[in-house]
């Protein structure tokens, strides 16, 4: 989700240091929804995610007087968030171990069902058997909302590591560089997880769109 209009980092930081409550409230309202979404990828339930986000904001308060603007304020805040979420996640035994962002052979398996492509005995091996079907353009706001609800549910079903990267990159709109900084992963590894996550979500939408919709 795009940011609402917030001033530049330097202005925000100066106001927070001057204990400008309205500035803090604006920041809470602008960033908490995205932070909750990221926290949900780490911890078991909504309640725990709310706790993690609160703890992260307290971490921001503790650190703001010493904040140095090497990273953007938002990236720095998200790094605090991810650290809180990881320790909370391990307390909840829904563990995302530090090694979780290391890739295995599975992560390099095809992201599209190989049965969708022609076999080696075909004159055009590796080409689509039939092209992906065209998706309908949503005719109403209601249908668009329905699609987003479906997509949100599919995102929740992704393996945690894919969900974390997709949430940061595509839902929150962070760049590859920023995600690598927040999660301390290599660009190549975050791209593999992003790729698997996106492909799975495209497939989920395809299923959604090609199901017969009751009239």
């Amino acid at each position, binding site marked *: 989700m795009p940011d609402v209009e917030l001033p530049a980092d330097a202005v925000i930081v100066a106001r927070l240091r001057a204990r400008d409550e309205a500035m803090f409230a604006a920041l809470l309202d602008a960033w908490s929804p995205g932070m909750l*979404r990221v926290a949900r990828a780490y911890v078991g339930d909504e309640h725990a995610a709310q706790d993690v986000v609160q703890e992260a904001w307290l971490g921001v308060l503790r650190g703001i007087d010493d904040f140095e603007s090497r990273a953007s304020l938002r990236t720095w805040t998200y790094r605090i968030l991810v650290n809180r979420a990881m320790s909370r996640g391990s307390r909840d035994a829904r563990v995302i171990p530090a090694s979780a962002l290391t890739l295995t052979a599975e992560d390099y398996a095809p992201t599209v069902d190989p049965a969708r492509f022609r076999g080696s005995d075909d004159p055009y091996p*590796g*080409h689509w058997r039939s092209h992906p079907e065209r998706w309908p353009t949503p005719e109403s706001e209601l249908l668009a909302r329905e699609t987003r609800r479906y*997509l949100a549910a599919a995102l929740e079903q992704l393996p945690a590591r894919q969900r974390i990267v997709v949430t940061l990159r595509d839902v929150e709109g962070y760049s590859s560089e920023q995600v690598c900084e927040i999660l301390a992963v290599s660009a190549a590894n975050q791209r593999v997880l992003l790729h698997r996550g996106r492909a799975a979500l495209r497939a989920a939408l395809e299923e959604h769109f090609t199901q017969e919709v009751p009239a």
Partner: protein
Amino acid sequence: MNCDEFVELVTAYLDGALDAHTAARFIEHLAACDGCERYLEQIRHTVGELHHLPGDSLAGHARDRLLAAFRDWPGAAAP
């Protein structure tokens, strides 16, 4: 390039992370294959929809507690 290779490169392509040779093969395939053009468009569409997912808000009591904590936070730094 075959379609089954193309679909595994879309994310690297969208990130501008393909080497020049692979990028050229990717574009060449894209220009010739309607199925892959649609696949790429659907990935883009998926990403676009993700960016519009609504978020939850911080619970009211949590927000109040944080604002109270901020109010009571010691030692406003001198500018």
